[in-house]
């Protein structure tokens, strides 16, 4: 082990002071080089001097790998020979079908559960005086890593055979009502929802914040008038609040769909894909490290990318209409 006491401060000074200083020096050098050109050419080149470092990083870390991965997905395990669509045929057959099925469950259930709970929390928190406290508490888990969240919930879901004392919170509550303990992480279908709920617990704060801010922008005079006319709270929510916050609902759904696509940590830590809970991001890790199959891993990654594509298009569309208005 490297000596932490000297190594860590050294790294921090290097990365948080040394590298930024180098970035500024590079910008200064670039600016000085620009003065060598006569006016017009210098002005045209300037944006690229400034964009150079950010752009190089994005190309290196995102754009170049995306292109290479798409090519590799048509190659064999060692990424040497072209094998056409075989990797994709594999990705949609046999045991992979269950994994893809689990992903579809995540893609549908996780955003919907999060949305419904966030609509409830955002609407109801708005009605109570201790809203800041409730909001802070719901936000807390958004700071917790998926890994730590998985440790926390592994204990919450802990299971002992019927008859012995239950250490896990959920099974202790079931015992309180005389129900048999449930092996939350082992029993099929239940375990998928148990894992999905961990993600809901971790991410609800984000959805609640977005919806809460939208709800507070709905005109209060309009709502007050409706209340004076004797409209019930449910009718007000359905007919006045909900239509007004639809754009934010869309934002929550797309954000959560992307989170569901990427989900890896929870499955990797809590079940490692056992008991019928595997998802493609975890399988990709397996193909990469245990099976060493670059072609399979790339095909899985491309499938993830293409599933995210509609969301990217929605974002671009919204961005353009926002920019125009």
């Amino acid at each position, binding site marked *: 082990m490297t000596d932490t006491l000297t190594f860590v401060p050294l790294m921090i000074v290097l990365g948080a002071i040394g590298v930024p200083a180098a970035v500024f020096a590079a910008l200064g050098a670039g600016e000085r080089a620009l003065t060598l050109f006569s006016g017009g050419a210098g002005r045209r080149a300037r944006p690229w001097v400034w964009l150079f470092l950010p752009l190089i990083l994005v190309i290196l*870390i995102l754009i170049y790998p995306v292109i290479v991965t798409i090519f590799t997905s048509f190659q064999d395990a060692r990424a040497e020979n072209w094998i056409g669509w075989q990797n994709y045929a594999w990705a949609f057959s046999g045991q992979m079908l269950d994994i893809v099925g689990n992903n579809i469950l995540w893609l549908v259930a996780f955003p919907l559960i999060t949305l419904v709970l966030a609509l409830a929390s955002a609407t109801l928190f708005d009605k109570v005086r201790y809203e800041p406290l409730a909001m802070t508490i719901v936000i*807390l888990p958004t700071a917790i890593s998926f890994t730590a969240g998985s440790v926390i919930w592994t204990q919450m879901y802990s299971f002992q055979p019927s008859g012995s004392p239950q250490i896990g919170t959920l099974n202790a509550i079931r015992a309180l009502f005389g129900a048999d303990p449930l092996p939350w992480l082992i029993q099929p279908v239940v375990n998928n929802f148990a894992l999905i709920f961990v993600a809901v617990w971790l991410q609800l704060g984000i959805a609640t914040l977005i919806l809460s801010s939208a709800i507070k922008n709905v005109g209060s005079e309009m709502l007050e008038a409706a209340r004076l006319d004797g409209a019930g709270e449910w009718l007000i929510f359905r007919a006045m609040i909900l239509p007004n916050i639809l754009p934010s609902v869309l934002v929550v759904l797309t954000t959560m769909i992307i989170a569901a696509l990427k989900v890896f940590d929870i499955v990797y830590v809590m079940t490692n894909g056992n008991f019928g809970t595997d998802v493609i991001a975890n399988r990709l890790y397996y193909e990469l490290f245990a099976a060493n199959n*670059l072609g399979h891993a790339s095909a899985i990654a491309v499938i993830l990318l293409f599933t995210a594509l509609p969301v990217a298009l929605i974002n671009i569309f919204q961005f353009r209409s926002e920019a125009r208005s």
Partner: protein
Amino acid sequence: MTGAPDPAITPRTFSSGARKGRRRRLPGTLVHVVVLLFIVGWVVPILALFLSSIRTQADTASSGWWMALVRPDLSLQNYALALDQLNIAGSLGTSLAIAIPTTVLTVLLSVIGAYALVRMRFAGRTALSLLLVSLLVTPPQITLVPLLRLYNQVGLSGSIPGIWLYQVGFTLPFGVFLLRGFIASIPKDLYESANLDGASELRTFWSIVLPLSRPIMASLGIMAFLWSWNDLLIPLLFLGGSGVSPPITVNLAGLVAQTTQGQGPLMAATFLSVIVPLMLIISMQRYFVRGILGGAVKG
């Protein structure tokens, strides 16, 4: 708050005092019950983690965490074990050595990129903005196969700067996206008077853009720190097999798999890993909220 408030990213948040006039008909009991259920459901798991971390090994093995409230028999033994045997101090150190530079560099390069994108006119500006927006949703998995190979070829794998490079590059589209609205709202007069004074572009950037953008940079900084600190996949893949202690997420994920140490030290280690980000968002909640709301693509 200085300078340029962007109406789109200064949302009216939940400061109840600011809008006293709003309805406040007394809510029914059912509303309170549901809100309390949310509070309990979202706070109990964290409480369970904390109490489990300060119970004795024997207690943890035989009864649930709530017994710590009934008959408290508390000890710091788990923390001693975690620091002593699970290399948690080294892991927290590595996590800091990754997250702090990543945060600083993400913020710096995002401001530079956003400034160029917003202030300077050039062919391809719109195309570049659209490219950034579409990169917002790229799953990290798509980058792994080529980058693992590249990192191995150039000797970056197993090194902490390699992790900075990845996390900064991956977060940059979000950073530029979050900052551009704010920087666009800095009044043009400020630039013009700087120009008249003969200030260079770099000087203008240093003395106008950086100071005025401080609030939104704080928001981005929090998000970047949380993502970096909480990331498991990238350090798990790119830092393996090096002499460095694994960062805290990788260490925790490994501890879950092996059950020999018992639950107590694992809970202590987990609590130590969440206390830094929890303190951060509690103390800087305003900036965190702005980061969330400003980063969502709005309709």
